[in-house]
């Protein structure tokens, strides 16, 4: 309907314009424009403008919400203004008992359980705990180790490494004039016995006697010292040398 109305007016307009070209104003004005029907696109002129001279007016005071507002009206308020608006509570559940508080150091626990089997009396631990036990093995002592398989190994102790279950010591000897060294794990089930053949005369001022590998410091073979020790021991105990198992 609108369209037909518009075209009718424009047709009339064009015919009149063609008929009287010289006339500046059309004789017949269009009845209307579509623009008038559409919402106004041009913003309304700013009729009120703030100047420095404008009298400062205070903010309008906030109107308080009516007290005892019925609940059915809450939905009309923004969420933050509703009287029952509170942060939602999240349940916090207490933690279950922790194994970490029972066992603070699991590595120590595992080591202790191992030592309880491998060294029940704690004798061997004390024998090599040179930091606490003054009667322990020290670097420079001559030791004789007998393994479970039966073959012994003797030599000078060059150093003790205290590492819990991995505690070990280094023995050095000369077999057929060739220097031989062996790290032996103190708590290894393969180690049958450890005997102190001879203690060092003077306390060594080093924890590791690696200088004894040098030719000028090398002790050479400890075979003679060990043989002497075994002879004395067999004389005392009355047992043949081959069966000597001590400590």
């Amino acid at each position, binding site marked *: 309907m*609108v*369209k037909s109305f*518009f075209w009718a*007016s*424009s047709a009339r*307009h*064009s015919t009149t314009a063609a008929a009287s070209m010289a006339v500046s104003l*059309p004789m017949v004005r*269009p009845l209307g*424009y*579509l*623009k008038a029907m*559409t919402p106004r696109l041009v913003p309304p002129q700013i009729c009120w403008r703030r100047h420095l001279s404008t009298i400062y007016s205070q903010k309008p005071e906030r109107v308080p919400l009516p007290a005892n507002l019925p609940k059915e009206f809450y939905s009309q308020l923004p969420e933050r203004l509703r009287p029952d608006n509170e942060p939602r509570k*999240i*349940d*916090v*559940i*207490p*933690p*279950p*008992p*922790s*194994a*970490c508080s*029972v*066992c603070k*150091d*699991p*590595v120590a*626990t*595992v*080591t202790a359980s*191992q030592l309880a*089997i*491998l060294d029940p009396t704690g004798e061997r631990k004390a024998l090599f705990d040179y930091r606490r036990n003054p009667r322990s093995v020290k670097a420079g002592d001559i030791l004789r180790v007998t393994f*479970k398989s039966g073959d012994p190994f003797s030599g000078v102790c060059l150093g003790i490494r205290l590492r*819990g*279950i*991995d505690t070990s010591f280094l023995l050095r000897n000369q077999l057929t004039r060739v220097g031989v060294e062996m790290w032996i*794990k103190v*708590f*290894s*089930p*393969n180690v049958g016995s450890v005997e102190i053949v001879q203690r060092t005369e003077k306390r060594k001022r080093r924890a590791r006697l690696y200088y004894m590998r040098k030719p000028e410091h090398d002790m050479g073979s400890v075979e003679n010292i060990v043989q002497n020790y075994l002879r004395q021991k067999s004389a005392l105990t009355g047992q043949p040398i081959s069966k000597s198992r001590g400590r």
Partner: protein
Amino acid sequence: MPPRILLDLPQLCRLCRPSPCLTNNIQRAFGIKSLNPPKPNRFNVSPGLPVLKSTQQDALERKIKADTLPLRTGVLAIKKGMTAIFDQDSGKRTPCTVLQLDRVQVVSHKTRDKHGYFAVQVGSGWRHPRRLTKALLGHFAVNGISSKRHVHEFRVRDERGLLGVGEIINANWFQEGQYVDARSNTRGMGFAGVIKRHGFHGQDRSHGVSLTHRSLGSAGPSQGGGSRVYPGKKMAGNMGNIQNKLQNLKVLKVDAPNGILVVKGSVSGPKGCLVKIQDAIKKPWPEGTLRQPGSSTV
């Protein structure tokens, strides 16, 4: 004066009406989808060709067919250090890693119907609720779990592997003698040069080499090679702190009251790092460990 027209009337009507594409009920797709979905090709049509299987469901079926999904969930443990275990009979020393389980609990499930796969979300440790986001706190509260320090997902084969929410997993979840896979982040090395990171040999100490003794040298061929650096060129960069998986570690010892799990050999990462342990996928699944549906015993 010709009247101006802003919009043609049919055009107006079209604007007011909702467009046809909006009226259709289009479902939003979730999950991973292919950038190049399979298209029918006229050269690729013959009766004997296999059906292309690129859906999530097919992927799950392939995974189940390959039998690489463990039957039951894994656990989160903390690496506590290394020690050794001596065998009393043979006298053999076995180096081992000590791991500890701290309040490992099932937090929630992922199911095939809802998420496309089966998985158990497991949490461990404890973190102060103040230090957690509201989203995580809500997640824990809904499932009735205390706030956890670590949360991780373990995929399982089917719903039989979904351990009940809230159940505490202890070290006796694993049996002594079984094999496990351990995933953890390696020790971070920071920004490392090519010698440390990739084992390059470096350059000469002398012979005219100046200030580039540890650099990588040329990064690529000259104009014949395209005058560019090829993708994947080994260069300096951040080293370590990436996940590493060690497979088929034997469980040497289980101590449930102390939450201790001892596995053979080493596990990646420094002491105190998080280790994800699950049944080894390259060994037969441990027997008698999978609970039957409906039974309450672990």
